[in-house]
Structures are given as structure tokens and as C-alpha cells.
């Protein structure tokens, strides 16, 4: 069939990004980018500021439309789908700044993300039944917020807000989880807790993480992709990438 199918070959990738380019008024934030994410892999994307990391996530989740190229998630072409359809397909995304509903309680934040009653009629007739409550409590326990379910989300600490947003993704049970700087602004203790959390939640799903904290990257990454000026500079295990002279020059050397 198409070239992309040939290049995927025998192996089934969860996510196959090929020849992806996006140009903002001539500036190519992402330039002919290709990478592949395996089943149950934790992939970390690193790179200097302006390398196009967040833009790549925006492209995958449909927030930004690609100029050319293809993004295939389990064989589905994401570039032609709307944001909510991409979510329904099984892609979840956490934003860089904690993006939660501050006026609602922790419980309500999680409940809204529960994948049921997602159209107008469904939302009008949605019932808070045992299934929903149990799921919300289970997730809340995972993200260390079990005792704060009734609290207004705006009153949580920064780290707790980050966890809440991760929880909001977990309750959707996505096959591909994308996290943009999940430990930014966290204390050392919170970072450790988050790393544990990520280890637990990444079972049975693939994860793409953008992160600057090298210690954290070493803790969690299966493989690392280094972006520079919208292109892949280097890719492989953390060990390999760390010693790559190109990477040392543009990123790690600073």
C-alpha cells in the first residue's frame, strides 16, 4: 500500500510519525521528523528550548495541524482527525502547566474525564453510579489525592495539581499517554513520588514524556529522542544519547 506501511515493516508500532513538518509563516518548528514508539515503551523527548518538543505533542493530539507528513496511531491517521476523536482513539495528553478545573472539586475533575456521556445527551443523563465512584476513588488513590476528593482543585498545591491532571488522563485509560514536563516545579520528594507513579501507570501503555530533568529522564526512560531545530538529533538509550558528541554539543554541554 503506502510507503509508510512498508517502512513500518513487520513490526507494529503504537505510534508512527513520518515526514512530519509544520511551518508557521515559513518557520519550520518541526522539520521532516520521523520517529516510532513501541508498545509499552516509555519514550522521553529532550532537547534545547525551541527544539519543537511541545509542538510535536500538539501535532499528535491535534491541537496544531501538520503542514505535511503523517502520524499513525495503531494504523489510524491522526492528522485528519479532530481533537476529541483523537482522544476517543486512545491518546491522552497532559499540558505543560497544570490544566485542571480550579472551580470544581477533585472528584468532579476526575469524573468529567471519565469516558462516558461525552455528547450533549449523555452529559445531561449522566448518572454518578457506583462504577464511576469506584473508578474515581481508585484513581485518586493512585495519584495520592484520595483524602482530598472533596477539595476545590484550585486550592491544591502545584505538585498535586500536576498529579490531578495525570489522574484525569489515567481515568480515560489511554493507550498512548503524552506528558509535557510532568515534574516541572515539583519538590525533590514530589519528583520521586511522581517517578514511582509513572512507573506504575505506564504498564500496558505507551508513554511519551517531555522532560528537562536529566535525573528524572534516566529514572524512567526506555529510549530517548533528542530534538534540535525540529529534527531528530539523536535517538537511543540514555547511555548512548548521553555520549553522542552531537548531543553534548547542542544540549547537554551547556
Amino acid at each position: 500500500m503506502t510507503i509508510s506501511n512498508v517502512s513500518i515493516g513487520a513490526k507494529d508500532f503504537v505510534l508512527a510519525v513520518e515526514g512530519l513538518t509544520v511551518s508557521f509563516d515559513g518557520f519550520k518548528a518541526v522539520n521532516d521528523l520521523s520517529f516510532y514508539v513501541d508498545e509499552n515503551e516509555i519514550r522521553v523527548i529532550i532537547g534545547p528550548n525551541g527544539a519543537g518538543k511541545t509542538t510535536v505533542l500538539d501535532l499528535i493530539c491535534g491541537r496544531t495541524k501538520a503542514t505535511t507528513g503523517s502520524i499513525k496511531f495503531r494504523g489510524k491517521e491522526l492528522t485528519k482527525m479532530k481533537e476529541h476523536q483523537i482522544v476517543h482513539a486512545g491518546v491522552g495528553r497532559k499540558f505543560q502547566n497544570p490544566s485542571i478545573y480550579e472551580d470544581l472539586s477533585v472528584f468532579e475533575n476526575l469524573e468529567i474525564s471519565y469516558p462516558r456521556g461525552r455528547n450533549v445527551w449523555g452529559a445531561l443523563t449522566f448518572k454518578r453510579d457506583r462504577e464511576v465512584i469506584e473508578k474515581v476513588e481508585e484513581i485518586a488513590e493512585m495519584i495520592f489525592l484520595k483524602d482530598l476528593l472533596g477539595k476545590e482543585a484550585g486550592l491544591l498545591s502545584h505538585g498535586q495539581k500536576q498529579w490531578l491532571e495525570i489522574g484525569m488522563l489515567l481515568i480515560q485509560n489511554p493507550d498512548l499517554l503524552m506528558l509535557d514536563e510532568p515534574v516541572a516545579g515539583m519538590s525533590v520528594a514530589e519528583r520521586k513520588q511522581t517517578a514511582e507513579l509513572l512507573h506504575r501507570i505506564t504498564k500496558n501503555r505507551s508513554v511519551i514524556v517531555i522532560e528537562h530533568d536529566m535525573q528524572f529522564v534516566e529514572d524512567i526512560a526506555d529510549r530517548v529522542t533528542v530534538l534540535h531545530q525540529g529534527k531528530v538529533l539523536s535517538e537511543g538509550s540514555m547511555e548512548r544519547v548521553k555520549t553522542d558528541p552531537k548531543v553534548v554539543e547542542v544540549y547537554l554541554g551547556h
Partner: protein
Amino acid sequence: MSYHGFKSYLPQQDLLGFALLAILLLVIFPLSMDIFRLNLVGKYLTYAFVALGLVLCWGYGGILSLGQGVFFGLGGYCMAMFLKLEASNPEATKIQSTPGIPDFMDWNQLTELPFFWQPFHSLTFTLIAVIVVPSIFAYFIGVAMFKRRVGGVYFAIITQALAAILTILIIGQQGYTGGVNGITDLRTLKGWDIRSDEAKYILYFVNVAILFLCLFAAQYVRKSKLGRLLVAMREREDRVRFSGYDVSNFKIFVFCLGAAFSAIGGAMFTLQVGFMSPSFVGIVPSIEMVIFCAVGGRLSLLGAVYGTLLVNWAKTSFSESFPELWLLAMGGLFIAVVLAFPNGLAGLYQTWVAPRVDKWLANLKTPRPLTTNPLESRS
């Protein structure tokens, strides 16, 4: 730990509020006022329908429409067309050059009833049209705007422009619409004289009853997941979108619901006041309705009703003495509300009165202390 109690769509505080409003509107006002004043209150209450729609659209959904008069007007005009046709039977209009058509058409040299007036001979069609026509109009505006992600101040400006356009259209098409005078001289509804005192009493109570139906509908929406989604969208539209919701559909829904409420208000206005004119469609009435909502508290359904009553009462008493100052006072009031108490009267009530009422309710009810569900405290 139970979250089940939360499912209650009418918590105690709200129930008390609804009951107090019912007593005020159904007992205190009718007993203490003559029919002239009561009819005036009835007229004000028709604006409360609009304010109610704005609470959902603007307060909850963050969609500020400065053109709700359009829907109020469409509903009112639908009702007026029916009543006008009934008042223009061939017998009553036999001195016209074309008997059987509304008088203003005759003055404008029309010799036959325009096609879009024809179905308004039927009361059933009219009652359906009162709700459906404005809702469909709102639906098209909603699709055109929200699917393209037009929002915020741009949406407000466009709705305001629509209010201006519709006013100009109505005034310009005098032969079809009655022009700047509107549709006047409405007399009977299926032979029942709506101008009599008795009819005004009945219409007042019908109006209050329908207002309560709309209040309950709005309360249901507010307490459903859709209500929480509206709040979520107001705060983090992107997060809602990336939680798998098509945000525009929810905005379209709530905008149409607001339009339908407004239209019902418009129809009740026509019935109680006896005419409909473009002066209830344009920019000024549309903005006034936003002020009613803001003064009452844009997050409170009951606040919208009280705000409407209060501002209109002030308007009537104030403009009798200082007609030219009223608009300035209204503008000042709006600024004051936004700056000093952004959640309006309802906000003041929530801060100062509600905690005491809660305590009182708790003491009243329980031998054992009321276990307050942490989730419920936000309702």
C-alpha cells in the same frame, strides 16, 4: 463516605429558595398589588426568562451574548402574529381596502397575507414556532460561531450586531412586520379577551408557572454533568476538548436553551402587554437583560429573577422622576456590580446569609449533627 447524596438535584438551600420565590410571586405580590402593578411585575418576569438563559450561557458557560433580545423578539413576534391575525378577522377589518389582513399591511398597500404569515392562523403551530424558530436561529448562529471557535468578546460583538440587524430589518420591512410601531392592538386569544383584568390575572399566574418550569429545567441542567462541563469549559476549554468532548456542541446546546427560554419570555410578554415592537429586540434591551442577570448574580438562577425584578422596579420608579438620568444610572449600576460585587446579589447572599441558613437548617432537622458531604458544600 457517600457521594450518592450529591445526586440530589434540589438541595435544601435551593429548595428553600424556590419555595420563597413561589410564595413571593404567587401569594405576596397578587395579594398586595392592584392588577396594574401586578401586570407590570408580570412584564418584568418575562425578562427573567432571558436572564435565566443568560445565567446558563454566560454565568456557567462563559458565553456572553449581547443579542438575547433577538430571541425574546422572535418569540414575542411569533405570538403577536397569531394574535394579530385573530384580531384582523374580515369583520373587524371591513373598512380596509383588503379586509382580513392586519391593518399595517393594508396601510402599506399589501393586498394579500404574506406566505410566512399564513401558518400563524394555527395556535398549535404558533406555540411550536415560539420555541422552535428562535432555537433554530440560535442553532445556526451557534454552529457558525462555535464550530469555528469564535468566542469571548468576538462572539459578544457578533450577537450585538445581529440584534442591530434584526431591528433594522423589522423596521425596514414595515409592510410585513408593522415597522417601528411593532404589532399592536392585539385583542383576543381564541376568543378570550386578553385585555380584561381577569385575563391579566390568569396570564400572570400562567407566566409564573412557566417561569418555574424553566427554573426547574435550568436547575436540572446546572446540576447535571453538563452543568459541570460548562464550568470546566469556561475555565479550560482545551482541557475539556482533550478529555474527549466536542466543546462546540455543548456551547450550541446551551446557547439554544438560552434562546428558547428568552423566546418563551417574549411570547408571554406579548400576551401580557398586548403588543410587540422592535424596541424589545435591539441592542439596548439586550444589554439591559445582561445587566439584570449581572445584578442578580450570573451564577444564580434565582438571583436572575430577583435581579430582573429589582432593576426593573428601580427603573420604573427612577425613570418616572428622572427619565433622562436612568440610562446613566443603569450604566453606573453595571460598573458597580462588576467592580464591587461580581457575583451580584446572589454572591452577597452566599457570603453573608447562606452560612446562617445552613446552620439553621441543620439545627432544625437533626438530633445528630448533619454530616455534610464535602462535595456538597460547593453546590
